[in-house]
């Protein structure tokens, strides 16, 4: 490595300072807002943990947290399962692999707003899937999950899995391709069947990829915002609120800045709990 002089430091200083200030300075500022009495306007009068007490007593936030648990489980579980399955299927020396991979992955190039708008049309109870199945001859078929407060969250999970499964596939496929061929050949010589090779050798050696994928997908689940806004806007009522939409509603339309800041801090804590151990282990292994 080249000994550094003053020039490189000077060159990166402005953008580093800006980015670190953006990240940690604003986190601290937001943290302070969450301890203040701010409502419609920022008000820097210290109010202790009042906002957090209000937050966890708020029914809407509790709904948002339990929705996040439901959505997170379905979204992460669904995307991981389908992604792994797709990766294994595509790993069978498929001639059209490139085309299929392109098809499985294109939703990742779309905005969640586009995905949400499309799925809103597909799942709408009037002319969408319900209409289609009725035209097929099942007259009594109803599918109104999108406007059912208890089921709408499942619609968001369906659209989320559709969008992200290909991404998980890409990560697992890269992992599978990185495994040394000779292990598989040796197992084949020993007469092991293909499912057994996957189950006993290949999937276990995907463990690091599995954890990094799990980390990325779970943090996406916590940050989910666009998809909900486009598909249900948190409705009916606030039945499909997630922490991110709760934060947006409080901070920018309900005039509850302190409460919004507190919910943002809760989101930060959740993401940090997942990401910091991961980053720590990734950066440590490398040295």
């Amino acid at each position, binding site marked *: 490595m080249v000994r550094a002089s003053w020039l490189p430091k000077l060159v990166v200083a402005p953008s580093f300072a800006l980015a670190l200030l953006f990240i940690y300075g604003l986190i601290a500022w937001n943290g302070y807002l969450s301890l203040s009495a701010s409502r419609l306007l920022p008000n820097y009068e210290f109010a202790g943990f009042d906002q957090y007490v209000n937050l966890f007593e708020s029914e809407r936030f509790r709904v948002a947290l339990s929705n996040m648990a439901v959505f997170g489980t379905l979204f992460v579980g669904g995307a991981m399962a389908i992604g792994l399955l797709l990766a294994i299927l595509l790993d069978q020396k498929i001639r059209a692999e490139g085309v299929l991979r392109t098809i499985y992955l294109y939703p990742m190039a779309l905005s*969640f707003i586009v995905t949400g708008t499309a799925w809103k049309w597909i799942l709408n109870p009037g002319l969408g899937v319900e209409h289609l199945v009725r035209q097929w001859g099942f007259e009594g078929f109803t599918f109104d999950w999108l406007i059912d407060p208890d089921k709408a969250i499942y619609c968001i999970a369906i659209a989320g899995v559709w969008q992200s499964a290909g991404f998980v596939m890409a990560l697992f496929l890269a992992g599978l391709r990185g495994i040394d061929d000779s292990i598989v050949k040796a197992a084949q010589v020993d007469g092991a069947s293909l499912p057994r090779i996957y189950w006993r050798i290949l999937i276990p050696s995907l463990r690091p990829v599995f954890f990094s994928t799990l980390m990325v997908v779970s943090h996406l689940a916590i940050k989910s915002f666009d998809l909900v806004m486009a598909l249900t806007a948190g409705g009916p009522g606030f039945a499909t609120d997630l922490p991110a939409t709760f934060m947006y509603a409080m901070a920018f339309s309900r005039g509850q800045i302190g409460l919004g800041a507190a919910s*943002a801090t809760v989101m930060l804590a959740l993401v940090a709990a997942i990401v910091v151990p991961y980053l720590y282990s990734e950066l440590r292994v490398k040295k």
Partner: protein
Amino acid sequence: MSRAVVHRALLWAALLLFAAWFLTPLYVMLTTSLKDMQQVREGNLLSLPSDPTLASWAKAWSSACTGIDCGGLKPFFMNSLLMVVPAVAVSTAIGAINGYVLSKWRFRGSETMFAMLLFGVFMPMQVVLLPMSQVLGWLGIASSIWGLIVVHVIAGIPSTTLFFRNYYVGLPDELVKAAMLDGAGFWRIFTRIVLPLSTPILVVTLIWQFTNIWNDFLYGVVFSGADSKPITVGLNNLANTSSSVKEYNVDMAAAMIAALPTLFVYIVAGKYFVRGLTAGAVKG
């Protein structure tokens, strides 16, 4: 029939079924956008338009209502273009220089700084929304395209730096050392040796930033004003504007318009997009 043939058939059936599942929404969007409302009501999600028309596309582009405004998506599309070009260019340039320093000119504390920067790739942006809107207000660029550009540039620095740094780590240090012996300095080495070797990562980063910034909704909805809203906000407003008759065909045409730029880039340079996706997940 041998077992191998049966297995192969099952494998292909599964692969094609998944392909259908992924393609159906796009098919539905496209066919719906080519129908008029009568065809939408008479047909169903999967039926082809009996009399294809581009009227919904024209309406979505120039006369559909987004809230109280009825000028279609055109102004939003233009805002997104004006925002995305400078934001992508500047954040990528900064990332290249940062990555160069972090890989070839390490100094005490540079690794720690990089680690601290990495958290910015993952953090929930909700924590910066409230303070940032105040900062933009002080700078006098709240509710403007300039404000959005600034936010996208700063928020993009962690990932662009990460991309370039990880790529440059793979370039042999001997290249830099040899150039130094020849008397080349910091900038000369960068422009003459490192940059010409950077094409792949440059493409990856440009595509990654373009896709992310074009598709962003959160900053767009929070930091934009009446005439600086990006396309995603326009689409969301259009699709959620309540009118007496819900025009799903116009919604779908609008969704297609918002999707086309990133979809086009994906089809032309998908390989690089996928590299960005995997590079963003597996660090170090």
